[in-house]
């Protein structure tokens, strides 16, 4: 954990140094820092996902729902990663497009689940 914080702070100073001289290098540096920090905490993420898998197995839900949740989690993370990077670079329009694309993909994935819920409701009434 400390390693990640130190990497972040060191990178912020270097980015400030490079900001006015070479803005593109500042962006590259921030991209590289995000990637490195995420690689740092991926191990912890894998552990959390395995625990959640066990938790979900107790619920005896049909198998597809947990992997659907994971997929949606991954898509929102990637969309947020891309859009915040574009916002850093000042391109808010592109960031908004990436957000929109992320939402569309999430909706398209979760539609079958919504339909299943409604069918269940109709059958109950």
């Amino acid at each position, binding site marked *: 954990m400390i390693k990640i914080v130190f990497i972040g702070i060191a990178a912020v100073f*270097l980015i400030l140094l*490079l900001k006015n*001289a070479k803005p*593109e*290098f500042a962006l590259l540096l921030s*991209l590289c820092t995000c990637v490195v920090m995420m690689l740092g905490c991926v191990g912890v*993420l894998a552990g959390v*996902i395995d625990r959640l898998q066990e938790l979900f197995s107790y619920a005896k839900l049909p198998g597809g729902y947990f992997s659907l949740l994971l*997929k949606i989690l*991954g898509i929102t993370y990637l969309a947020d990663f891309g859009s915040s990077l574009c916002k850093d670079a000042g391109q808010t329009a592109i960031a908004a497009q990436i957000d929109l694309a992320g939402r569309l993909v999430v909706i398209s994935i979760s539609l079958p689940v919504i339909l299943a819920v409604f069918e269940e409701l109709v059958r109950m009434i």
Partner: protein
Amino acid sequence: MLLGVCMTIQLIFRIAAVGILVSVINQILKHSGREEHAFLVSLAGLLLVLLWIVPYIAELFSIIRELFEL
């Protein structure tokens, strides 16, 4: 895993070093009047840094894909 504690900080410092070097060289080239060389040098620096970063990005995306079953 490409990742090690010293690997990551060293990578970040290398990128910052290339950035500073390129900006210094650009200043020198600008003052000596050769504008297009300055642009070429900054382009080369950019490509070099991209060359270093791409394997890390590829590894991150493959890990994310395999972890979230995307």
